[in-house]
């Protein structure tokens, strides 16, 4: 394996090991919320797909701009978004399968949408803290000499 591949492997492990350790600790502390966690996972997956596909559909306008405005990819992406929305509503209307504490499929869909926005906000703050932390660490260090003559 090349050095670069090894380095990337270490970095991916560094990102995933702390959250996995936290999950092990939470599991050792013993709570049974498997069913709730599955529902939340399912809701996040379908909402994440639909939400992101919607944003990428808007992005397709910019792609169309650079390709003499073809309609086929635009409609393709809009169809993919609508498909996601329909599958979401269909799955949510299957009784207890993905319904959390909401009374109807529509209420659950709206709740999912708000939750994904809040999660995005939390993810954004985490990225800001990390990237900002790296910048602070780099710029706080005294200037390095690149050459001895300097």
């Amino acid at each position, binding site marked *: 394996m090349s050095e670069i591949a090894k380095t990337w492997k270490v970095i991916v492990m560094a990102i995933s090991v702390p959250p996995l350790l936290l999950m092990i600790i939470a599991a050792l502390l013993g709570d049974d919320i498997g069913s709730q966690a599955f529902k939340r996972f399912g809701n996040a997956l379908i909402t994440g797909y639909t939400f992101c596909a919607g944003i990428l559909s808007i992005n397709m306008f910019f792609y169309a701009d650079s390709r003499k405005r073809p309609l086929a990819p635009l409609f393709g992406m809009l169809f993919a978004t609508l498909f996601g929305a329909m599958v979401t509503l269909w799955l949510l209307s299957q009784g207890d399968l993905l319904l959390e504490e909401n009374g109807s499929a529509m209420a659950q869909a709206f709740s999912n949408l708000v939750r994904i926005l809040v999660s995005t906000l939390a993810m954004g703050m985490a990225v800001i803290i990390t990237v900002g*932390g790296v910048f602070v660490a780099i710029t706080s260090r005294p200037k390095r000499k690149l050459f001895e003559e300097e």
Partner: protein
Amino acid sequence: MDEMVQAALLFWIPALALVVGTGTALSSRSERIKFLSKIIALTGFVFVLLSPMTVPESPSSAAGHLLGSIVGPCALLITGIYLLAFSGNVEVGKLSSTDRKIGAACTFFGLIWFEGMHWWTWTPMLNGEVNPYWLVFWPTFLLLSTGLSSGAAFSLRYLGDSRENESNFMLIISTLTFSLTVLGMMLDGPNISSELFRDHFWLAASDLFGIGIGVGLAILVFALVIWIYESSLPSVKTLDVPSKQELAEAASIIANHIGGEQE
């Protein structure tokens, strides 16, 4: 007015305006559209913030309440990090040492404010209960910060050149967020019990995995749509090889334009 219409007018449309306005302000090239987008986003933001008062019956307005509760510490943290980063060794636009002190104070108080929301009585409360979206925000933030900081620490160490100190700093951040999460799982806060935090930690982890896979699928579909379209396009018509006569003509035109005697 019907409750649904009220919620749509006073929460959902402003929320959409906030998302679309922010996206357009960041991506548009036209200064006029950027300015308009900022106004639209700001108006949406104000309406979402006011939603707990304008549409208190709508469960979604809890998100507006959360936004109002966290805007202070988030602004302090972002300002603090900005001031700290640009008061260090930067080549252009270096800020003063006073700015550095203000930055350190902003970051410290931003962190204390967030911690007070979990470990003290500053928890965002709505109708006598912990705001449900705070229980989404806080575990998600801690979980992702732990992983990303650790990843940044190892990236600095393995990809950077003599970046051990910076790497150690990021490891401290990762350890701090890791410890805060473990403490939250083991000790009760005044408003959030350890059991409640653990439950929401699992839900946040499920949320992150779900969103990650969902977003990955959407990107895959996006790439597939573009690939199908591009592969359906007729291949570009290639020109015939130039004839001897065309080559001779081109050579004579070139010969007339090099040398520079006439200029």
